[in-house]
């Protein structure tokens, strides 16, 4: 884009106002945090409305608002349908969340579960996967922030990226999980209302028939329901989504922070609310050819179309929606990853006798450090958002079977779980480089599943579920 939809000063004004609001809100919510459990898990007492909203809003990331339109532009209708199937991750996690809450009443993280269920070796492999994924996602979000501001307002990429990181680190630092979840609720409302409004405006002004007609005549491949690479993408995306949600502490820490009896219905509701969003955002990209819009960076196709059709008002809406989507995921990831480092590495391995106050201080330092590391990685624009995201697919899809079987099956041992995750990741990466990004998660999940199947068939082991009920180290404080 040579002409920007918003002038730089308007962009800066919006971001400063939002930044002040979120940080102030985070600070206000953080006053209620009296213990590390309050800070990390919102006192394990989150109600249904906030729980459903946070599940939905966290899953609406920059990828849903920027990459779903990009993939729709690449793969046509299968791009958006395939993307919407990632809702299966949330929906299928619903019964697992209930099970997690039952099995680990005092648990803090997904790492806790892997350590107690599979032992040290599997824990190390799992932590490597988790950290690679967390940084992949954090960097893609930070980069998306910079790209967004630059594309819509002309503000330098580095300034935009830094501003978004500072805001999210700021309110997560002050408010912990409580701030993350409460801001997610407001952000969820903004995202859905904004995206729906843009799609409605497009339908009203251009018309669905007109878009379909133009695609049939000029770009029939985008309407092809038998587009092989796109069908492959659909299945790959399902497994990628399952891997992301099943393993990531973002979702485990939420399950553990919800009130008793809330986890199942919250994830189910969140998943169902998320399902149509990629179709709505993806559809926006299908209007691009008709409007003669071909942006230099494909991940800006959605915002560019919206800004072109709705003018300045549209650009403001897009800006706020994507900023909210970025913030709702960035804060969750910062909080969940710092919990993982604090609880699994610092508390369990380095300082088992650390006081509650000490853990809270370390957790806050960790959030700050994660923000700085993400900022350093974001300085060079290393890959397009889609490429960066799909690379992580090879890692996370390898955890699907070990997590699932670990929660429901007594026979899988730690050694097989570790080998399944390591070999699945390695084969997924080979698939990524040898065939394409759209098979990485598929290959990884298939290899990991095969190793787990062998592990179960040859196993004499019977895990005792009671071993998961670890005592809370601070119960006596």
């Amino acid at each position, binding site marked *: 884009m040579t002409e920007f939809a918003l002038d730089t000063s308007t962009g800066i004004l919006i971001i400063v106002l939002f930044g002040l609001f979120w940080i102030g809100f985070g600070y206000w919510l953080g006053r209620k945090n009296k213990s590390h459990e309050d800070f990390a898990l919102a006192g394990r007492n989150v109600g249904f409305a906030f729980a459903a909203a946070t599940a939905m809003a966290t899953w609406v990331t920059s990828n849903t608002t920027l990459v779903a339109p990009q993939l729709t532009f690449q793969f046509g*209708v299968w791009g958006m349908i395939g993307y919407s199937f990632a809702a299966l991750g949330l929906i299928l996690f619903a019964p697992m969340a209930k099970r997690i809450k039952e099995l680990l009443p005092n648990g803090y993280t997904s790492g806790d579960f892997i350590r107690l269920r599979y032992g040290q070796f599997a824990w190390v492999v799992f932590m490597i996967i988790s950290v690679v994924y967390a940084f992949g996602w954090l960097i893609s979000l930070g980069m998306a922030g910079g790209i967004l501001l630059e594309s819509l307002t002309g503000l330098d990429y580095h300034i935009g990226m830094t501003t978004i990181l500072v805001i999210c680190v700021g309110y997560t630092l002050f408010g912990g999980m409580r701030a993350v979840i409460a801001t997610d609720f407001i952000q969820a409302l903004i995202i859905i209302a904004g995206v729906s409004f843009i799609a409605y405006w497009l339908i009203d002004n251009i018309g669905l028939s007109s878009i379909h007609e133009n695609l049939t005549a000029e770009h029939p491949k985008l309407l092809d329901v038998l587009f092989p690479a796109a069908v492959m993408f659909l299945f790959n995306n399902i497994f990628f989504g399952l891997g992301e949600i099943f393993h990531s502490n973002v979702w485990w820490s939420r399950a553990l922070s919800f009130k008793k009896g809330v986890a199942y219905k919250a994830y189910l509701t969140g998943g169902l609310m998320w399902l149509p969003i990629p179709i709505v955002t993806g559809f926006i990209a299908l209007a691009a050819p008709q409007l003669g819009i071909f942006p230099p960076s494909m991940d800006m196709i959605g915002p560019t179309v919206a800004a072109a059709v709705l003018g300045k008002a549209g650009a403001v809406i897009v800006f706020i929606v994507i900023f909210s989507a970025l913030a709702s995921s960035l804060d969750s990831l910062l909080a969940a990853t710092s919990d993982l480092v604090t609880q699994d590495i610092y508390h369990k391995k380095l300082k088992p006798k650390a006081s509650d106050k000490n853990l809270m201080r370390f957790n806050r330092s960790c959030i700050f450090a994660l923000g700085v590391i993400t900022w350093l990685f974001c300085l060079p624009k290393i890959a397009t958002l889609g490429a960066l995201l799909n690379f992580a697919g090879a890692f996370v899809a390898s955890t699907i079977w070990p997590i699932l079987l670990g929660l429901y099956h007594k026979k899988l041992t730690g050694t097989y779980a570790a080998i399944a995750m390591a070999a699945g990741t390695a084969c997924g990466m080979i698939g990524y480089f040898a065939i394409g990004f759209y098979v990485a998660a598929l290959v990884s999940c298939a290899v990991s599943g095969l190793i787990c199947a062998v592990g179960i068939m040859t196993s004499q082991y019977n895990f005792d579920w009671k071993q998961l009920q670890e005592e809370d180290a601070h119960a006596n404080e």
Partner: protein
Amino acid sequence: MLMSESVFEWMIITALILSCLAPVVLLVLWVKDLISKTIW
């Protein structure tokens, strides 16, 4: 094989209606939690 116009329209309209319903559902749940004092 191309997706027909009616299927295309049906898919987009359904997705739009469902996404419009989501904020309503969230607000109703929030009010319910607020009344029963179970937000946190």
